[in-house]
């Protein structure tokens, strides 16, 4: 047992029992290549606890029908469970009103909704959109599409070698043409936690709305959209112990009401005639068609599960994992951590001298260890830091110190094979 591991147990004797938590996740009992699975690809997708699986089974077994339609029993149950899930998500991010919580298919869909619904209406020729070097492609490409369509311009906040945004440079980018800011809360490639609250305050002082991509933050820390004072906050269910195909867009009600719908169809209308269609109120205006009902209800169960453990306890355990893993890797000759921001979430990108990330990924997989290798859909970050790709271990609250040890042993094995 490591020093930190011991310290953690002393610090929190009963608060965080990782073994008890692990028992909730059936997939963690798997073996891969005859080794116990060590799942360290949580930034790509997290695993699902039995409580969420059971909730999905209960919905499909006893509650399923289409929502907002019929007067029959099942439709009423499904509608009420779906709206209850919306309230759970509202509480989870402390949104002021439940109609500010829109179900989307994921973070990408949520950002595209804002681009189409807000951007295409309010951003025009010569206007400027501020993004950052750290952004995931999903918070770059939609804005490039808008810029191309409207003749708008994208300005990019640079980073330092540690992977931190240069806030002075961010502030210098503002001018009278600045119409929008898009920034990720936590970097998926490096783990950097960005000072979004301060960035939002600066933008708001100049009347500029801010979208926060919270895909990597919502699973790992307490998110309070009112405290952040953000205008939009987007995140995904499947990184949050929920199902795939579901995500959330939080939007300030006043903004949502003035936005145009992104998708047309059923549910998003009050009345349809060929002469004129009246759109529904928010959030329904943005939820055309039958939504992923089961997935939304599953996500509601997932945030219940996380809230019961406590986001602060989750953040504390993950920080302990990060600190221990960082200390171990820093003591290994020939291994370098990519992304050394002062404030980091439990994402550890690293490079091993003389070994390509894909070879590291395959050889760690041989040891049952799942990491991500590649550019992490953040090619501008890779270009800025002059690395073609990295290997990335990303932790969740159900990871243990023993799994950090397994990762370290795995990297030693890789180095031995390549010397």
């Amino acid at each position, binding site marked *: 047992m490591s020093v930190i591991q011991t310290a953690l147990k002393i610090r929190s004797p009963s608060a965080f029992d990782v073994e008890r938590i692990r028992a909730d996740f059936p997939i963690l009992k798997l073996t891969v*290549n005859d080794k116990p699975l060590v799942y360290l690809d949580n930034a790509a997708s997290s695993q699902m606890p039995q409580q969420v699986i059971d909730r999905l089974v209960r919905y499909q077994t006893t509650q399923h029908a289409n929502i907002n339609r019929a007067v029959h029993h099942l439709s009423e149950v499904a509608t009420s469970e779906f709206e209850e899930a919306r309230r759970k998500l509202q509480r989870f991010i402390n949104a002021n009103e439940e109609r500010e919580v829109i179900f989307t298919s994921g973070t990408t869909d949520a950002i595209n909704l804002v681009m189409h619904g807000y951007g295409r209406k309010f951003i025009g020729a010569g206007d400027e959109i501020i993004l950052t070097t750290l952004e995931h492609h999903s918070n770059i490409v939609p804005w490039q599409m808008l810029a191309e369509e409207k003749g708008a311009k994208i300005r990019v906040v640079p980073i330092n070698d540690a992977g931190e945004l240069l806030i002075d440079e961010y502030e210098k980018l503002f001018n009278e043409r600045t119409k929008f800011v898009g920034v990720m809360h936590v970097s998926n490639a490096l783990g950097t936690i960005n000072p979004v609250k301060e960035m939002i305050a600066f933008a708001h002082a100049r009347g500029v709305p801010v979208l926060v991509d919270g895909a990597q933050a919502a699973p790992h820390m307490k998110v309070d959209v009112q405290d952040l004072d953000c205008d939009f906050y987007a995140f995904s269910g499947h990184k949050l112990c929920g199902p795939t195909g579901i995500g959330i867009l939080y939007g300030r009600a006043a903004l949502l009401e003035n936005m145009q719908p992104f998708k047309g169809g059923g549910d998003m209308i009050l009345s349809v005639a060929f002469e004129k269609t009246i759109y529904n109120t928010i959030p329904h205006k943005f939820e055309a068609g039958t939504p992923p009902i089961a997935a939304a209800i599953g996500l509601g169960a997932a945030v219940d599960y996380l809230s019961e453990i406590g986001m602060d306890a989750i953040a504390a355990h993950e920080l302990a994992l990060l600190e221990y893993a960082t200390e171990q890797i820093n003591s290994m000759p020939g291994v370098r951590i990519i992304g050394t921001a002062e404030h980091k979430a439990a994402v550890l990108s690293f490079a091993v001298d003389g070994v390509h990330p*894909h070879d590291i990924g395959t050889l760690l*997989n041989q040891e049952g260890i799942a990491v991500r*290798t*590649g550019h992490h859909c953040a090619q501008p970050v890779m270009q800025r830091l002059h690395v073609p790709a990295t290997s990335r271990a990303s932790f969740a609250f159900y990871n243990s110190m023993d799994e950090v040890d397994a990762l370290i042993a795995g990297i030693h094995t890789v180095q031995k*094979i390549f010397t």
Partner: protein
Amino acid sequence: MANYKSLYQEVILDHNKKPRNYGTIEHPSHHAVGHNPLCGDHITVDIVLGERIDNIAFEGESCAICKASASMMTTAIKGKTRAEAETLIQEFLAMATGKLSHDACPNIGRLAVFAGVSDLPTRVKCAILPWHTLHGAFNAVATTSTEAEEDPMHAPIGDA
């Protein structure tokens, strides 16, 4: 289940460490650049083709599987006719993508060490990139384009 260890055996590790025919040729008769869109890796292949492949060289940043595959490709191809080389390309692609076992590839020889890659769908592209690039270099004569059409390289493997 794949025996991953068989993929990283001595011969592959050796070619990765000391790649043969590494570099560029000053006046190649054929040249192509191959990209692996999954990881951004790229290699170049230069050839001097007369009646036979008189010289061949490759260069680029890539993983061990790709580099060893390129290195062993150059040693296997040098001195062969273009037709023989094309046959070997087809055999290698068929073996690496799991369409043929290495026993069913009469010319494959020592390149059979790459048979295990067919069990690793995300690594198949690494092994076949050099062969794809060689194929592109040959075809540049006729088509002046190395943009491939029906190649397993272009199988969609996402990188979200």
